[in-house]
C-alpha cells in the first residue's frame, strides 16, 4: 500500500505543478480572453454546475447525455468488433478477405468520418453512433483476431486428451485466453469512443459536453470552454481508473503471484 500512496502523492504533486504553471502563464499573459487563470476557471466550473445552461438545461443533463452516447456507441462497437475479430481469428478465408478492408478503415481520419456522419445523419443521434462503430470496430476486431490466433495450442491439446467438451473448453480455455485482448481492446475503444463522441457533439449534435465546447467557443468565452474541458477530462479519468482499472485488477488476480504461496 505504501507504493500506492507514493504514486498517489507523486501524481497529486505533478497535477499541482501543472496548475501552478498555468497560473504563472495566465498572470504573465494577463488577458482572460486568451488564458484565464485557474481561479477564474474554477469559478466558471462552479457556475456551470449550479446554474442553467444556454438552453435552460442543467449541466448534469449535458454530462448525462454525453455519457449515454458514449456507453451505447462503445458497446455497439465492442460487440461488432468481438464478433468480427473472432470470425477473423478462427476462419482463415474470412481473415484474408477482411485484410483488404480493415487497413482502409484504419486509415480513415477520425474528423473526416465525423463530418461524413453529420452530413448523412444531420443532427440526429445516429450520426455519432455510426461514426464510432465505423472507426472503432476495426481496432477491436484486429485485437481480438490476434488473441484468437495466439491461443495456446498445448492447452487445447491438454483439454482434448482429457476429453473436455465444447462448453467447458469455451468457458475455461478460450475465454480466459481472450480476456486480456478484450480488455486491451476495451481501453483503446473507450478512449477512441469518447473522443469521437465529443467531436460529433461539437460539430453536429444538440446537447452534451461537446455541444457546450462549441457553444461557448462561439461566445468567445474562454473560461467556460476551459471549464467544460476540465469537467470532461475529470469524468473520463474517473471512468478509466475507477471502473476499468478495478475491473481489470479483479479479473487478472491470478497474474500477480502472492509470495506467501511459494514454498
Amino acid at each position, binding site marked *: 500500500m505504501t507504493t500506492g500512496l507514493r504514486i498517489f502523492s507523486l501524481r497529486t504533486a505533478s497535477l499541482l505543478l501543472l496548475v501552478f504553471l498555468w497560473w504563472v502563464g495566465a498572470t504573465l499573459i494577463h488577458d482572460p480572453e486568451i488564458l484565464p487563470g485557474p481561479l477564474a476557471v474554477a469559478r466558471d466550473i462552479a457556475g456551470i454546475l449550479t446554474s442553467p445552461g444556454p438552453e435552460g438545461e442543467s449541466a448534469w443533463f449535458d454530462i448525462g447525455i454525453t455519457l449515454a452516447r458514449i456507453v451505447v456507441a462503445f458497446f455497439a462497437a465492442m460487440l461488432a468488433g468481438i464478433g468480427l475479430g473472432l470470425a477473423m481469428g478462427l476462419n482463415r478465408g474470412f481473415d484474408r478477405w477482411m485484410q483488404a478492408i480493415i487497413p482502409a478503415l484504419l486509415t480513415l481520419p477520425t474528423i473526416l468520418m465525423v463530418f461524413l456522419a453529420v452530413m448523412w445523419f444531420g443532427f440526429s443521434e445516429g450520426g455519432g453512433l455510426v461514426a464510432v462503430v465505423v472507426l472503432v470496430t476495426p481496432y477491436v476486431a484486429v485485437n481480438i483476431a490476434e488473441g484468437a490466433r495466439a491461443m495456446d495450442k*498445448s*492447452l487445447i491439446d491438454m483439454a482434448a*486428451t482429457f*476429453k473436455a467438451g465444447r462448453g467447458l473448453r469455451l468457458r475455461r480455455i478460450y475465454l480466459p485466453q481472450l480476456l486480456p485482448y478484450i480488455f486491451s481492446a476495451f481501453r483503446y475503444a473507450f478512449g477512441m469512443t469518447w473522443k469521437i463522441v465529443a467531436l460529433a457533439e461539437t460539430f453536429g449534435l444538440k446537447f452534451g459536453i461537446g455541444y457546450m465546447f462549441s457553444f461557448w467557443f462561439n461566445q468567445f468565452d474562454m473560461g467556460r470552454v476551459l471549464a467544460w474541458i476540465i469537467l470532461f477530462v475529470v469524468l473520463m479519468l474517473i471512468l478509466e481508473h475507477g471502473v476499468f482499472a478495478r475491473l481489470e485488477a479483479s479479473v487478472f*488476480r491470478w497474474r500477480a503471484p502472492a509470495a506467501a*504461496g*511459494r514454498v
Partner: protein
Amino acid sequence: MPSDQAIVRDVRAPATPAAVITVEKLTKRFPSPGGLAPFVVIEEMSVKVGDGEFVSIVGPSGCGKSTLLNVIAGIETYDSGTVTLSPKPGRGQTPPRVAYVFQTPRLLNWLTVRQNIEFVLEAQNIPRERWTGLVSEHLRLVGLAGQEDNYPLNLSGGMQQRVAIARALAIEPDILLMDEPFSHLDAITARKLRADLMAIMNRARPAILFVTHDLAEAVLLSDHIYMMETKPARIFKQVVVDIARPRSPEDERVFALERELMREFFSVLETKG
C-alpha cells in the same frame, strides 16, 4: 469382482497381466512439403502395457516417442496399424479413462489448483459430489495438501508438475501416459518426484506408458523398457527390468543395468555410422 480388484492392488503385477494398451504395427507419417516422400515418424511399432505395469520407451530426442503417446491419447491420427485401449480388468469402465502428464505442467494459470483438477473431473463427467474428496485426496498424495486455493503461478515448477500429476490421477485413470514429465525440473526435484511417483504407483496402479530419454530414470521406474532408435524410428530391443522393488537410485543393480543398456544404445548408433 471386488475380490479380484483387491488382489490386483495388493500383489505385484503377475507375469503376464491382461493388456490395457495394445499397439500393433503402428505407422505414422507426416506429409513432406513440395511433394517429397512423406516423413515416417513411427514405423510398424508394437507396444504392450499390462494392467498395473510401468512401461518405458527410451530413445533419443526426436525419435517419435511423444507422437506415439499423442496417437494413443487420440489427439493425433495415424496411417496404419491398430491401437487398442481397454479398462482395468474388473472395472468395466468403458471407454477406459486415459490421463496424460506432459513435459510441462500445462495448467490453466487463471484457475486455482482446485479448479484445475475440477476441470478434468468435469471433462470426464465424474459426479460433482465426489469432487471435493478426489481433489483433496490426490493433492495429499502428491504432497500438496492445503494448496487448493492457490494459483499455479504462485507455485514452483516442481509443485506445478505435482499438480499436473494430481490432476491426472484424480480421474482414477485406467491408463496414464507420461511424456518426459521430469525433464524440465532440476535434478533434485526430479529425483524427489520420481520417488513419490513410485510410492503413488503402489497405491493407484494404472497402466503407465512413460516416455523418456533418461535411461537411469527408465531403469529405476519400469517393469519393461522398449529401446528406440531413430531414422527409421523403430524399437530395437525390449528389456524386462527384473530388479526387486522398492528400488533406490543408488542400487548397484540399477546402475549396472543402466550401463549395460547405454552400451547397447551406443553400439546401435555406431553401426549406423
